[in-house]
Structures are given as C-alpha cells and as structure tokens.
C-alpha cells in the first residue's frame, strides 16, 4: 500500500511539472500544414503545437485528453475550417478553452466537392498557393491581435512568407504551362486536389468512393480502371494519408507505374520529403509533371 501511495505521488509530481517555456506564446494548430504556416509567421515568439501530426488524417481525427490539455493552455487556436477540423468545437468546449479560435480560411473563394453523393465545401483550400497567402494574412492578423508588442515582427514575417509563396506560385504556373493542356490529367487516391487543379489547370480524377473513410466498391473500382485504360492515363499517384494497397493494385492491373506519394492533407515528418508547406509543393509539383508527361 505504501508503495502504491509513493507511486501515485511520483506520478502526480511528474505530471505537475511541465516544461514551462519562458513567456512564449502557446499556439495550437489543428493539423501539420497549418502548424508549419503558424510557426513561420510567429517566428521565435511562440511555441506551436500541432494536434494532427505528420502523416495524420485531419478528416477522421479523434482528440485525446492530452490534446484537450494543450488546447486549454493555448493563447490562440488555429483551424482550417471548411469542415476539415470540425472536431475542434467539441475539443475547445471540453477543454474549457476561452481564447480565440481563428479560422484561417476565412476570405477565400470556396469550391465544392462530391462526397457520398452530397455536395460539400471542399476543405483542401491550402492546395492553391494564393489561398496559402490568405491563410498567412489571417494568421498574422490573429497574432498581432493576441500579442501587440511583437506586431512589427509578425508583419515582417508575413510579408516575407507571402512573397516566398507568390514566387513559388509563379514558378509552379510556369512549370505546368509547359505541359499541353490535354496531358494535364492525374488520378489520385483521395479527392484533395480540387483547388490545386483549378489554380494550375490540371484535371484531377479522384475515384469517387475511394475516399479515405469508406471501403471501396467493386463498381467504382472497375469504372476507374476502365477510364484509366480507355483514356491512356499514366499519371497515377498515392497520397501519404491513404492505404497504399488499393492504388498499388490498380497500378499493377492497368500496367501503369505509380508516380510516388503526393502530400495532400498532412506534411511528412521533419526528415521526410515534405516537412513544410512550401516543401510539400516542391515535392508534389515535379512528381505530377513527371507523371503527366507520360500521358
């Protein structure tokens, strides 16, 4: 019994001494791509915690009590909105979080997508770099409001980041412009590139029914394969958050070589090919180009 009491005491002691960062803002971002953007703009003034980490799927995330603890101690919480991270509402409620929840996608022009035969708002707005710039502006505005003394730094970081995104956007446009429009067709495992396709003139054929959540039906699969064969599509990609087995099978059966993993809804771990928002584009764009040229 004494041992048990001692053990409980030890656990409480360890639990009660969190590593306190010296007066840094504590910020929480709902998923990894947003986390990277927030850290870029906050710079050294904040500690950013990401709820859905690298290679995680924000669509189906289930928060744990540890996440509630992080949210409770946060100064500002950043979410994508557009239905991607709806779970933040119940999480903020259960964590009794009183601070601001910033929806970084406010002000973008939304697109719709089909899911389970329903038209919903497509949440993957960050796949258009111009929307990324809007995200950056929203993040900076929220940081300036939360921490006025460092407003100048946040403004400076935002301007530098937005300039970098604009340059990347130009580069991506030029690269895709070199591919004939008829060849710009790509198949991915999950319908996450609606904004990307609209921004850069690429048709993404995501097999409906092969979403991240549902089990595939033989009917959808056969339609997709027939389409791949009849239209001679060679650009076939898997995404980092989905089960690779299905796309591998499709590739084998249609005789198409898989074009490697695209990062859509989550970044890679720091040592991976796409640890930041910008690196994600630098990973995806050349792979897409390589695949399209084969069409």
């Amino acid at each position, binding site marked *: 019994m004494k041992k048990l009491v001692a053990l409980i005491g030890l656990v409480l002691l360890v639990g009660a001494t969190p590593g306190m960062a010296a007066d840094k803002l504590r910020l929480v971002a709902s998923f990894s791509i947003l986390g990277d953007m927030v850290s870029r703009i906050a710079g050294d003034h904040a500690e950013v915690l990401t709820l859905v980490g690298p290679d995680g799927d924000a669509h189906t995330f289930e928060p744990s009590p540890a996440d509630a603890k992080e949210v409770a101690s946060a100064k500002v919480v950043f979410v994508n909105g557009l239905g991607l991270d709806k779970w933040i509402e119940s999480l903020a409620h259960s964590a009794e979080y009183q601070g601001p929840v910033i929806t970084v996608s406010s002000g973008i022009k939304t697109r719709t997508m089909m899911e389970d035969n329903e038209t919903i708002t497509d949440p993957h707005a960050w796949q258009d770099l111009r929307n990324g710039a809007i995200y950056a502006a929203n993040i900076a505005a929220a940081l300036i409001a939360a921490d006025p003394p460092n407003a100048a730094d946040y403004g400076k970081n935002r301007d530098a980041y937005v300039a970098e995104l604009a340059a990347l956007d130009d580069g991506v446009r030029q690269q895709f412009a070199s591919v004939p429009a008829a060849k710009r067709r790509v198949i991915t495992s999950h319908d996450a590139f609606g904004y990307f396709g609209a921004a850069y003139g690429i048709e993404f054929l995501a097999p409906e029914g092969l979403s991240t959540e549902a089990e595939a*039906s*033989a009917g959808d699969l056969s339609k997709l394969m027939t389409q791949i064969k009849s239209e001679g599509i060679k650009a076939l990609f898997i995404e980092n958050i989905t089960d690779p087995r299905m796309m591998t099978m499709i590739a084998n059966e249609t005789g198409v070589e898989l074009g490697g993993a695209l990062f859509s809804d989550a970044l890679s771990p720091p040592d991976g090919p796409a640890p930041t928002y910008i690196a994600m584009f630098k990973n995806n764009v050349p792979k897409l180009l390589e695949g399209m040229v084969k069409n």
Partner: protein
Amino acid sequence: MLIYDILIAPFADFGFMKRALIACLALSLGSGPIGIFLVLRRMSLMGDAMSHAILPGAAIGFLLAGYSLWAMSVGGLIVGLAVVVLAGLVSRNTILKEDASLAGFYLMSLAAGVLIVSKRGSNVDLLHVLFGTILAVDAASLVLVAAISSLTLVVLAIIYRPLVAECYDPGFLRVAGGRGPVYHIIFLILVVINLVAGFQALGTLMAVGLMMLPAAAARLWSSQVTTLAATASLIGFASGALGLLVSFHFNLPSGPAIVLMAGLAYLFSILFGIKGGMARAYFRKPHFHNGKEL
C-alpha cells in the same frame, strides 16, 4: 448476352474481381468446415471472439512494417494462439469456464489492438485493419489464403474422427484416451489460422462472417458432418461471388456485401431449411418419430 454481362463479364474483364473471387473460394473451403465444427460444438461466438483477439498482433505487425502481409499475419497468428492457450490454461486452472476466460482475454486483446493502431497511424489505418479490402488482395495474399485452407482441410481429415466424437460427447475421449485436449487445441489453432487468412481479405471484423454464417445456414439443411462441411463451403463461396457482383453492379462496399449475402442465405435457411427450419416445423403434420437426427 445480358446474363453474361451481369454474371460473367465482371470477373472476366477485371483481374481484381477474379482475385477476389478466388480469395472467397479459398476462404470458404477452409472456413466452412471450421464453422461447422464451431456450430456443432456450440462455440459459434468463439470465432467472433477470436477474430477480435488477433487484432493487436496484426496491429503490432502493422506498426513494425506497415501494410505488410507477412508481418500482420504472423503477428495475428502469434497473438491469436497466445489468447487461445492462455484462455485454455485459465479455464483448466481456475473456476472460470473457457467462455469467460476467452472473453476476458479477447477484450483485452481488442482494446490493445485499437490502442496500438490509433497510436501510430490515423483512424483510416484502423478502419482498413478492421474492415480489410478484398478488392486489393494480391497474389501473395492469395497464396497465403490458399495454403491455409489446404492445410486446414488436411488437418481436419486427420483429426476428423476424434473431433466428431468430441462434438457429440465431450466426455467420451476423456474416458477413452485422454487426448481430447490435444485435439481441442489443434482445432483452436485451425480456427485462428483461418481467421488470419480471412482478415487479410475481409478485415478482422468481417472475416468471421464467412466462417459462421454459411455454417449456421448449412446446419439447417443436413445432419451429416461431411455434407454440412461441403454445404457450408458452397454457401460461403456463393455468398462471396454474389456479394462481389452486388458490389460491382450497385457500387456497394464489397466486404459487407459478401457477409450480408451469407446473411441472406442464413435467413433463407432458417425459414425453409429441411432440417429444423421454421417452415418444416409449422407445416408438417404432427407425428411421432424417434429418428436419430442431430
């Protein structure tokens, strides 16, 4: 031509449909007889419990090697066997009966499995492990499933007599030879390996569907163990083929479609089965008999 388009063309035109069909055939051949013995020994829920028990093993395999066929199978096998053996030991050495000890271990096992998969990956990964993807079955999985069902049939043939004897009179072997527990353990191992085979194709939740539903349905059509086993395999395979066709033509997920087809066969058998079905019970003229039906 129409019938060809509906029934044959899906399998003729698409390799993944062929592989899924062959997977159903192989699974049914092994799982049918196993299911029959589970039904006859009143252990029908045991298959369900075991299918959950193998989850953490598969999860650890997934953790170490991603969606690797061998890692997940071996993991599932090891944990499944461990649960069987532990449950057996507990039931022999404590006051708990086998069902209670098995329930205890399988629940722990299930919770550990969900915990492990969720910790490493997303909920999507968990769903794929739980529900499987028979449409993505590859050649290696087919070889594994076929090998397991072949092994099952051979082993069942070898231990057939003592197994049947134990079905009808569990005390008999204990009195006659004392090797009852050995056959029991061998049988439980067969249950586990068949569930591992099924989980490659249908996921841990649905794998047991092709084992128990065809067996329960077959039970209403015959009282001969060999006929029962063959009927169960046949119903299982037919459910697989029909389920795949339904999934193909109506855009429904294939795993649940297959299991629901087996469910329809079960409902039909309950109503019209000639051995103890409802229609027989209600419509036949009352008469006295002391036939040796099961």
